[in-house]
């Protein structure tokens, strides 16, 4: 049990996918201008990653490993995740219109999200068992959401601040992200 908690804390804070591993920076900058979008994106990433983690893990165990095709992992995962996200979008539109209205526009963005890909690859690389994989596939996107929502809160305040012309918008956002990353480094010694 303790291992799983450690794994979750490690995934959320110590090895935060955004601020420590620097994966998924496009949506981090793109959807953090307003809190509404950030929350929607965070939820969508948790939802998709949980699914993608399970599917890729099974794919690895059933096809790639027995067939000795581990070297094909990256390209296979791209296809699998892309098809999965498309499928989920089609399914949600029909069966869960309310959820689709909330998350729908973020799903296509996740198709090309490196954080999703990264976590799936980490799951394999760290040789997690099924449960560990599940914890990691939920904790990493939770960390992603945490960083994204914190960042959106900062950006909402920065928009109304007096920012020098050359630094406005994305520039100041990147500087801010840098500081956030530095502060997250403080979690390093925790585990």
């Amino acid at each position, binding site marked *: 049990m303790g291992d799983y908690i450690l794994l979750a804390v490690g995934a959320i804070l110590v090895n935060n996918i955004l601020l420590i591993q620097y994966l998924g920076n496009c949506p981090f900058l793109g959807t953090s201008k307003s809190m509404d979008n950030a929350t929607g994106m965070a939820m969508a990433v948790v939802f998709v990653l949980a699914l993608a983690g399970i599917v890729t893990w099974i794919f690895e165990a059933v096809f790639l490993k027995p067939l000795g095709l581990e070297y094909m992992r990256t390209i*296979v995962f791209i296809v699998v995740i*892309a098809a999965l996200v498309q*499928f989920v979008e089609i*399914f949600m*539109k*029909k069966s869960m219109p309310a959820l689709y209205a909330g998350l729908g*526009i973020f799903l296509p963005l996740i198709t090309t999200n490196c954080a999703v890909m990264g976590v799936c690859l980490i799951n394999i690389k760290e040789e997690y068992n099924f449960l560990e994989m599940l914890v990691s596939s939920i904790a990493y996107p939770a960390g992603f959401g945490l960083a994204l929502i914190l960042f959106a809160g900062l950006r909402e305040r920065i928009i*109304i*601040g007096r920012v020098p012309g050359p630094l406005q918008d994305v520039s100041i956002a990147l500087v801010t992200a840098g500081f956030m990353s530095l502060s997250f480094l403080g979690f390093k010694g925790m585990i």
Partner: protein
Amino acid sequence: MIEALLLMMGLGAVAGTLLGIASKIFYVWEDPRIALVVDCLAGANCGGCGYTGCGACAAAMVSGEAPVSACIVAGADGAAKVAAVLGLEAGAAEALTSQNTCTGGFRAPEKFSYMGVNDCRAAYLLYAGAKDCDVGCLGFGSCVKACVFDALKIGPDGYPVVDEEKCVGCGACEKACPKGIMQVRKPSDRLLHMNLVTDRLAPCRQTCPAEVNIPKYINHIKRGEYDKAWLTVMERNPLPLSTGRVCPHPCEDACRRALADDPVSINQLKRFCSDWVMNKGTSLKIPVAPDTGYKVAIVGGGPSGLSAAFYLRRLGHKVKIFEWLPKLGGMIYYGIPEYRLPKEILYEDINRIFGLGGIEVKTGVKFGVDFDLESLVGGGFDAVLMTIGAMNHASARIPDEDKVKGVLPATVYLRRQGLGDPCPIGKRVGVIGGGNVAMDCLRSSVRLGAEKVYCLYRRTIKEMPANVVEIEACEHEGIEFITLCTPTKFTTDEEGILTGIEYLKNELGEPDASGRRKPVPIEGSETVIPLDNFILAIGQTTDSAFADEEGTAVSRLETKWGAIVNDSDTHQTAIPYVFTSGDCAGPPGLLVAAVGAGRRAARGIHKYLMGEDMAFPPARLRVDSRRMKGHIPGTIFDSIEGIQRKGRIAQPELEPGSYERQHTYAEVDLTVTEEDALKEANRCMRCCLTCYNKDTS
């Protein structure tokens, strides 16, 4: 190598097949036009339109929520393509535009000196901003920064000004404003809006029963934009020429300027700008919403019916008016004499209403005789508005009042004049009553050739409900007032023809429920005056006898003292598709109140037809313009500062005692000159809730 290729091919085939099957199983029907519209858009998913991505924007365009020009990136070409796909003229859908509702700016006092970040949202975080007014503009221009179309700028007075040419109605300013001052609305939304306590309303605008945006149109006059002033009035009052002549202007009683010198002569300014538009003969385009496909029948072509017809048409409904008498206008055609409101002028107003197109009229048909609710429903009307007015007279409780020859009800007396067939009258005429109808009877009797005209009233002139200007005009025309009297009986000759009336003198007792002192007759004070004719002008009632018949659809209507009972907000009656407004829905009142009620009824009918919530929001502002109560707290002042005293302009009128004034029906009150109108418009302080322009030039 082979395995890898096979794996990828297999994976591709499986994924493709699965997705293909899924897209069939989980197929969601979507308007095929949405996909076509998406192709016309920029495809950048930039969000500049205010929707989340091009798909959402296309869906909004197809459903009619967004104008075809919503996509900024695609520009005018894109809009034309979308319009072609949707089969619309570009701009046919109702365009959203932004409007600033605060006119405070620099003049608004501040609670403290704010030195923080120059942004409204930042300033708002500190005690909701420095402005004294809770709902006032903070002036840092967050809306200006939010606008990507360069359609907004902070004007010279410190509040944002919208460039309507550039505004596309994206809604960015509305979202950026922490105080809700920028409002992006369709024209129909503006027509449906009723005054709320949270709005930014000057006292005059709160008081006007038709809710006309008075400071705005006066400001247009000030700038010489008389056509825009007229259009502003038409947003709330489609009979500006008529109200400009006969309205007793309760708004002026609330005018804040009265605390310094005299109230602004608001009604004369309304009359001036509407006369200017009439004399120019320009046809100004009034926006009409796309057709909804609903048809509304309006029973009665009086002011309330005409007002409702105008607004229903502008909301996109087809309207047909059924009128009993040969001419439209109801009480203002048949009740108000020519010298106060020339029929030609009234018809100018009515023709403007019909200029919208889509309003039909049928005259000479009476409800309950020629047609009824069943035939209207059968005729395909989706809702019915009853504006049958109050055409019956109330009794004066004098014995034999309906038998004695020479005693006439005011309604009949005035209507016969309107029909061009005035009742023949003798040399001595008495009128009982102290309201505007009584004044109309008195003054038209002078014009019909009566030599001696008396006004009998049970209280004193001070308590008369008629307009002061009307009472003065009566005095100018030589009418004698016999106040504090109660007529008790008629004297007649042997043929039953009136020869005179006997009355008791009154004294005033304790105040009654209306706050006026109750007249008490003095015993033994009988006096007789000789009269040839006596006119009863003490009130009117609605002829709603048709509701008493059993077994008809209309018998489901409830009536109270003749008036048809309705919900005073939605104007809906006991029959869901029947609405009523104007004099027949309650105690007969002012023309401007009937016009306002017509718009409220149009709102009720529109909400009913569209299946929307009909009730007013809880923040509805309810002002009693007669008792001057119910204004937004803190907006009625005891004194004002910084105003140079300047009297109001006089009312130009025909020379008292002149031949035209005494013996013809020529219009007595005249329109002010442009010079005077500008002078008067400049007296307006353009008030809002609490702030106002000091020291007007």
